């Protein structure tokens, strides 16, 4: 995640802040740091995370 990047929550119009976000997939749960709206809790998941590590985790759990 780029440190200098500032994101505003589209719903609450406040700046999103780094926070630990939890995911679960096929009975396993994982966490990673993402930008999250301090008011409504909405998180921003960058495309590079979806196509990178998240896909790797999915493949690891789906393998064979």
């Amino acid at each position, binding site marked *: 995640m780029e440190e200098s990047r500032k994101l505003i929550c589209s719903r609450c119009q406040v700046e999103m802040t780094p926070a630990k976000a939890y*995911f679960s997939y*096929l*009975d*396993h*749960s*994982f*966490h*990673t740091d993402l930008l999250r709206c301090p008011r409504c809790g909405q998180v921003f998941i960058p495309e590079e995370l979806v196509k990178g*590590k*998240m896909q*790797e*985790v999915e493949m*690891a*759990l*789906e*393998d*064979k």
Partner: protein
Amino acid sequence: MREDNRSGEIEETAVLRCTYSVCPICLRRIEARHVRRKGGVFLEKECPEHGAFSVPFWRDRIDLADWIKDAEPIREGENLNCPHACGLCPDHRRDTCCVVLEVTGRCNLDCSFCFAGKDGLSEPSFDRLRESLQQLIRPGATLVQLSGGEPTLRDDLPELVAEAKKAGCKYVQLNSNGIRLAEDRQFVKTLADAGLSFVFMQFDGIRDGTYEKLRRRPLLGIKKQAIVNCGECGLGVVLVPTLVPRVNIDEIGDIIRFGVALSPFVRGVHFQPVSYFGRIPRLPGDEDRFTLDELIWQIGEQAGDLVRPENLGPSCCDHPLCGFHGDFIVLGPGKLLPLSKRDGHTVQDSPCSDPADRSREFVARRWQRGEEKLSGNPLNSRQDDIQDMDSFLERLKVHGFTVTAMPFQDAGNLDLERLRSCSLHVFAEGKMIPLCARYLTAWRGK
């Protein structure tokens, strides 16, 4: 159905499935049935010339129907040339996952059991093997297993590995008894430098007595040294035990424990319940068969703290009766995190990928050493936060561990329904031949 059994008593039986097999004496293709009777499920068949045969293949430790699920039975008129015209005909149902190339007939052991047998003399020339490699390799995809005999008896094996890589082979696996790998560390280094991906090493147990029975000499110290030499050169090792009733069934749990303790050098255990082809000490009785469901049950009994039976599922790349796989991460010397579970998400749910391609990538990713490959400590038990996505992925690459099995078929239990879904092929005579068809040998007497 009620019928007389061998001792003249009336026994309840049920025909579960019809299939085809061969007569173990003359190898002619004959009809066969899966029959449930006392003691499990048997493959039963009758040759008009050589009589009736019955071989147990399931002992009801796991529900057979639940394990096989919707595997399609072979129907009348299908696979008519199987297994005698084998060479992947249009009726064959699987592409090649792994391809075996025999690089020598020579061997430095004289094992009681050996499916490849050994003729002691024959060895194809380097040029002939190069030609074979060029024919069999699909650039960027192939996983080739260099096999034998004992392939390390060839001094030019590193050049063969390099040749396979040059021809575009994605993964090169060495099938070895480990003797030269233990005694000649420089040879191991040369193999690693040439691009060898990982080693499948014969490893029948943690007792020298087991090796004396199966391999006719004590080999445990040699196996351990071979693992260390491979590990220090960055090569992953998969332990391959041949499981024989009354010899090493009670070592199943200890073999898994041994492998886990040596992660990341050891990448997994690949069990092979004994099959009776090639060189065998005698023709098998029912008590000489060790079935796939018994193996899974024994794993739970002997190593249930590490591997639970529900974490082992049928291989999607081959017929369900041809093996299982389990995928884990080593969290410490005595702890595995299971990633796979039976009835979980499988490749069949993924319409976009070919099972053979996907299975090949899976095993190769697990068996090849991860990025930490030369950092040295095989007993690294650093406790990461395994739920952290980065730690999970890192630990999986370095400390991934598989528990897999493949029971080969012989003239007694050959089931053509299984054979037509085989993805492990031998390259011979210019064509791909399913392994159990290639090594099929007739029994000389009933």
